[in-house]
């Protein structure tokens, strides 16, 4: 079977869950080959990639791959596309993953599909568009299919691959070295999982009422091992940092479980969470549109309901 390149998402030497999902998906369509961009690969990381089916692991470990914005990763993948003629390239549909995909598409004269929530035979991708109102199946018609897949599109399943390591060196062009990273500023996020790849997300909205009250949302999130999100109303009010905003102008999440507390569910919010597998809503207003989406809804005051839920979750663990 032909090779499918999977760009590895990694942080501090650890492979992110979305990469294991992509390897699982790639296995159903060909032979996965992981591409590690940047320094810091560990034996553990290699073992993890092999465990989830990577037949090859291409390692481009030079510092300069990550010292500049996006372009070096696109050059690395373009080099591998020319060298290995893969059947497709899969990247995670993170903001940066999509940018890599976009530049790679221009470089290789290939079509690109972003935000796939499923991928089938012939690399036909499922997408959910217009705030979840329309389901589309689309495919690349020219070049090597480049597909950005949303986290949580499939459950990662282990199935060992050979994991043969191959060092790759690329000579970056001057234009790939045009936007230089001076400094990486890490903002505290504690022990919580990352919002876009978390299996469970607990979000708070206008109904939370204040920045202090977000501790109620965080309490439930921590009991469930979930990420915390916020509606635009909550981030605009300054109750929660902007990078946690879920919705049209913020992050798009597609978790197994989404709990919306004090969020009415305007289209702008729904656009960011409508592909969640299970949705639970807690809101005082029985007419809130979020209840139209909810698999389970509680009409009530979140300040009563959420702490009780948190207590029950802790008790039943």
């Amino acid at each position: 079977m032909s090779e499918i390149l999977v760009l590895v998402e990694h942080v501090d030497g650890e492979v992110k869950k979305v990469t294991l999902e992509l390897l699982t998906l790639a296995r159903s369509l060909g032979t996965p080959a992981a591409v590690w961009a940047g320094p810091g690969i560990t034996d553990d990381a290699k073992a993890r990639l092999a465990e989830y089916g990577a037949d090859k692991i291409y390692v481009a470990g030079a510092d300069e791959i990550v010292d500049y914005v996006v372009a070096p990763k696109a050059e690395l993948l373009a080099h591998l596309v020319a060298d290995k003629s893969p059947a497709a390239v899969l990247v995670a549909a993170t903001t940066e993953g999509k940018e890599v995909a976009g530049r790679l598409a221009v470089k290789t004269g290939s079509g690109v599909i972003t935000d796939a929530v499923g991928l089938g035979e012939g690399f036909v991708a499922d997408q959910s568009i217009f705030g979840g109102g329309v389901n589309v199946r689309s495919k690349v018609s020219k070049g090597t299919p480049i597909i950005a897949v949303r986290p949580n599109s499939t459950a990662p399943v282990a199935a060992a691959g050979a994991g043969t390591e191959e060092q790759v060196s690329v000579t970056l062009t001057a234009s790939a070295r045009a936007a230089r990273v001076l400094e990486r500023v890490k903002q505290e996020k504690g022990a919580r999982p990352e919002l876009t790849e978390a299996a469970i997300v607990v979000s708070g909205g206008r109904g939370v009422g204040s920045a202090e009250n977000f501790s109620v949302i965080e309490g439930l999130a921590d009991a469930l091992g979930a990420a915390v999100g916020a509606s635009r109303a909550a981030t605009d009010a300054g109750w929660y940092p902007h990078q946690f905003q879920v919705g049209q102008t913020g992050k798009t999440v597609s978790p197994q479980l989404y709990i919306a507390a004090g969020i009415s569910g305007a289209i702008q919010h729904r656009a960011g969470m409508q592909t969640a597998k299970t949705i639970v809503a807690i809101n005082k207003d029985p007419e809130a549109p979020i209840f139209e989406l909810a698999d389970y809804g509680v009409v009530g005051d979140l300040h009563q309901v959420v702490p009780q839920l948190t207590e029950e979750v802790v008790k039943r663990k």
Partner: protein
Amino acid sequence: MNIVVCVKQVPDTATERKLRSDDKTLDRDAVDGVVNELDEYAVEEALKLKEAHGGEVTVLTMGPSRAAETIRKALAMGADKAVHLTDDALHGSDALSTSYAMAQVLKKIGFDLVILGSESTDARTGVLAAMLAERLDAPQLTLAKKVEVEGSQIVIERITDYGFDKVAAELPAVVSVVEKINDPRYPSFKGIMAAKKKPVQTLAIADAEIAADQVGLGAAWSEVVDFAAAPPRAAGTIVKDEGDGGSKAADFLASKKFI
């Protein structure tokens, strides 16, 4: 500084958006058009940079004739002039074709800085700025929550999953902005009146040396196989909190094996 701000007219997200059954493209006639929200932040940032460093702000849009409404809004906010790329041949262009067409215009009109919103509310691909940087061979300074220019040097703060990166480059460059970068101004009455007299140059594809076989639906690098309205979610169970709402919700989570 010669700043070009790219704006897009998108369907109002408050209205129901549909794909056309004939060519599977967005039915733009059926909905009200508005300025893509993130592009308003781009216009504001361009105006602020002009106020600080001097120069000129040009609005660039690609779209059918009604996209002129979007140009007028950006001019009313304070941009100096506009270029409207409009041609029937462009209908159905995907991100690759759009980036090619826009890059051709940008090469023709010249720029020190190109600014756009990081994503549109209709297609939501989030790739256009990266593609423009690739095609224009210019530094990619995308997802900016802060932009600072000093001489020919530009530094931005790029949003990342862990916080942000400080990124530096030499002009000319391509910048995309995120929502929290500024508060877009409302057009003043004076601004609205002044906008009517500002020059708007209309270009067809031949005027910008855009090859007809590289744009439009026929040239698209990807295609819609089929589409359908999302089936409504099965009606859920809604309960009223009688002092046991949290406990009931926990029962539900347990039944789904989340706890």
